[in-house]
């Protein structure tokens, strides 16, 4: 069914570009404190890279990249990372998301612990945004034979 709509130019170009867009998204997540961006923007770009393959090659083929049910699970997992980091700080005797206390478990200085804490939170937010956006796309298209 998808072969009817297949546009070889769009399909091939998106397959070539998708990994690079994904890497750019990871760059946005990891460099959140030097340049604009951070978890949310990076997560959106990651979702965009995945949706590009879904749009161009058809939903069936794109299951090879990320399966249908995985989006929701990844979304929950991202939120878990975010809250896990926050509650870890609470357990260590500080406030919610009080990163500097992470230095008690991680073998780094207080400043570096702050750095790592922010990184964990941003990775969590990125995964959550990506998973949920892909899940929304898949749920909207459920049962559509042309997808």
């Amino acid at each position, binding site marked *: 069914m998808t072969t*009817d*709509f297949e*546009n070889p130019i*769009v399909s091939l170009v*998106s397959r070539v*570009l998708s990994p690079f*867009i994904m890497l*750019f998204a990871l760059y*946005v997540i990891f460099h959140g404190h030097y*340049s*604009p*961006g951070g978890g949310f*923007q990076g997560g959106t*770009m990651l979702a*965009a890279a995945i*949706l*590009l393959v879904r*749009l*161009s090659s058809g939903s069936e083929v794109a299951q090879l990249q990320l399966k249908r049910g995985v989006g929701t699970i990844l979304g929950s997992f991202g939120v878990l990372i975010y809250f896990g980091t926050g509650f870890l700080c609470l357990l260590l005797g500080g406030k919610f998301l009080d990163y500097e206390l992470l230095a008690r478990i991680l073998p780094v200085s207080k400043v570096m612990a702050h750095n790592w804490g922010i990184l964990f939170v941003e990775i969590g937010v990125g995964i959550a945004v990506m998973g949920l956006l892909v899940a929304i796309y898949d749920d909207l298209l459920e049962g559509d034979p*042309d997808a």
Partner: protein
Amino acid sequence: MGNYFIYLSVVLSIIIFVPLYRVLAGPTICDRILGAGAIATKTMVLILVIGLVFNRLDMFIDITLAYAVLNFIGTIAIAKYLDILGFKKEKRGYKKK
């Protein structure tokens, strides 16, 4: 040199309004999307020049790249929707014959 880029950004932001006419008046939906794409291309250039004016080009380049990616994906999505619409119309026409 600093002033020149300010003038250039003003000129570019005036140019952006030209394709807007096609977006508002375009007889078919494809014309409107084409106009929107043209606006996006000019906006990318404008962002870069403004980055040079503010002396933070490294930051604005990232924004431009993100903008380019999202513009591309948006155009592809709409094009695919219209494409499938056309296919469905065609099939209905054949059935009537």
